């Protein structure tokens, strides 16, 4: 039995404004789920409905099999970390963490032990007497975290908890949060718009757009088998590059024609593409799946526009048919702007999308 089940839930804010149009999701015990999407996609609204901070327009929410759709927030057995921390400025760190335990009438010495334990877990055990105003942003976030952990909830909700931290601290906290999850094993839902945060933390990612789920999958699945053009473009930095090509089948081979290049692929391995004979297909190429090759064996040549060194790799951009294409190459390769380079695709790793539906064309060879 799943820990949390969302059955056909929806949220309407006003007559024609839907926060969430339709949402079905099952979260397994101990799982770390990330709701990912651009702003306005309904991810935070979904979380707020699970927390009971937002009423559900339609649908049912089950927590451990029990219908909690109409139960008040405080009786749901959940806890939450808010984007702006939402710790109480007039209470000391200790009082903040102990708040829920006191309301539950837990014995005093147990409260003390629990507060110390959770505060130590997030490394603020020495700050218990301080007021939040005397803490840095990162420390305040840890207080919010400790307060949520102290409850030992059935479900742990996090609403963009790292988005107010500076870039460096964000990456540190990411790792710590993952370690804390491995230690506490609390079933968690994490909302973010940062795809690299989602990739690095999630057991499964739920990608949302316009109030609906676009794809649910492990980080590898959403990266290597993106369900549609939106996901392929949203996941990964730099995002995938897209090329519209015409598909033709000649002499038993499939050829994909672009104004600047023609790709010929194996008709057996890519037999599903045969159905698109004389139709348009959209190719999605990850930046690392475009390769610099000697000009003789290149699919096409192009002039380099800019080079962005990143240390571990470099991003090389060029213009193809008036659109900027970005690729990732190893730092050993020396390229300079205006160099003419030979380019090819790692055909095995390309994504193919239907140009009408923008959905992935499933290839049989992938279902291994």
């Amino acid at each position, binding site marked *: 039995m799943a820990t949390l089940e969302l059955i056909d839930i929806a949220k309407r804010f006003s007559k024609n404004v839907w926060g969430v149009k339709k949402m079905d999701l099952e979260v397994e015990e101990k799982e770390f789920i990330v709701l990912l999407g651009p702003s306005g996609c309904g991810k935070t609204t979904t979380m707020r409905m699970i927390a*009971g901070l937002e009423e559900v327009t339609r649908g049912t929410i089950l927590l451990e099999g029990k219908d909690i759709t109409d139960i*008040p*927030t*405080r009786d749901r057995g*959940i806890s939450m970390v808010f984007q702006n921390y*939402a*710790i109480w400025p007039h209470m000391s760190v200790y009082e903040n963490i102990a708040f829920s335990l006191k*309301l*539950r009438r837990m014995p005093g010495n147990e409260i003390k032990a629990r507060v110390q334990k959770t505060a130590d877990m997030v490394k603020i055990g020495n700050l218990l007497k301080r007021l939040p105003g005397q803490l840095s942003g990162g420390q305040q976030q840890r207080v919010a975290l400790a*307060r949520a952990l102290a409850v030992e909830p059935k479900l742990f909700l996090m609403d963009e908890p790292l988005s107010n931290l500076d870039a460096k601290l964000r990456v540190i906290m990411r790792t710590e949060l993952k370690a804390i999850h491995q230690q506490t094993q609390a079933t968690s839902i994490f909302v973010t718009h940062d795809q690299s945060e989602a990739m690095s933390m999630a057991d499964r990612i739920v990608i949302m757009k316009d109030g609906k789920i676009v794809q649910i999958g492990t980080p590898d699945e959403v990266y290597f088998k993106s369900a549609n053009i939106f996901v392929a473009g949203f996941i990964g930095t730099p995002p995938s590059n897209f090329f519209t090509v015409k598909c033709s089948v000649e002499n038993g081979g499939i050829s994909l024609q672009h104004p600047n290049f023609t790709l010929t692929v194996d008709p057996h391995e890519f037999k599903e593409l045969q159905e698109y004979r004389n139709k348009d297909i959209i190719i999605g190429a990850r930046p690392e799946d475009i390769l610099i090759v000697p000009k003789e064996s290149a699919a096409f040549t192009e002039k380099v526009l800019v080079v962005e060194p990143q240390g571990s790799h470099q991003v090389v951009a060029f213009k193809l048919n008036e659109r900027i294409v970005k690729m990732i190459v190893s730092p050993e390769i020396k390229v300079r702007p205006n160099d003419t380079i030979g380019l090819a695709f790692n055909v095995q790793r390309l994504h193919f999308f239907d140009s009408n539906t923008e959905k992935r064309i499933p290839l049989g060879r992938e279902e291994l």
Partner: protein
Amino acid sequence: MTSTKSFLSLDKESKKKMVPYLLIAPVIIYYFLFWMFPVINAIVESFKSVDGVWTFDNYLYIFKNPVFYQALFNTGFIVVFSVTIEFVLAFGLALLINTKFKGSSIFLFLAIIPMSLPAVAVGAMWSSGLATRGWLNSLLMTIGLIDDGGKFLFLAGGRMATMWLIIIIDAWTVIPFVMIILLAGLQGIGEDVREAGAVFGGTKFQILRKITMPMLKPTITTAMILRIISAIQIWLIIVLLFGFNRLPVLLEQVVLNYDQLGAAYFERIGLALSVLVALIVSAASVFYLKVSGSFEKEAVQNE
């Protein structure tokens, strides 16, 4: 001209240092000319007789006059009850409007109407309303609650009845003001701290007591101080409804002495009384800040 010259001849560093003083100079001059000077003058004059001789007689006259103690008690009574009632009702209204229910902005608009009326208009309105043949009795008769023989004699009550009437009218007038301040404070408190209260097990009442009110404390203190100060200074509505000396209060006595009795001798007593009122207002404010713990909080934060 000379000052300009000497300013120009200064080196850059000292010019820079002078800029802030130059910028605040107009305010300081204004403050001394129109504020400090009259105040100090009033204090000095209150210690002088009509002939310009230093004396305590003005104060002694006040302290020997039983009306002063009556005025002191009446003012205190009105302050305690009107400020309490105003706070409770205004806070309730502010909480209600802050829930942003449908039509809350129209409700807010209606609720602040009394605030926009000048005191004289309020006095005229209520004195015509509370008269035995006034609109309040007419209204009660129209809706059938009383008949012609049962008219209320609102303005003819004893001292307590009179004071309660004043308290109610004062509350009616200033509740919008207190409500606006509290509402502004409430809107400054993020929704999320209250939501966190709900997530971590608080009932609506617990959230109000343990989160909203403590966080609103600076605003509450401000509103209360402002209200206490202006409640101590109540007089116009009383004079408009009852005339002088029916219900003596502190400031009414100041006006009576300074303005109404005519003789220069009374003017000085009026001055002495206003100095006393100023002292009482300051003492009350400090007392409130002390009781509400506003001094301590800063000490904790500075730790």
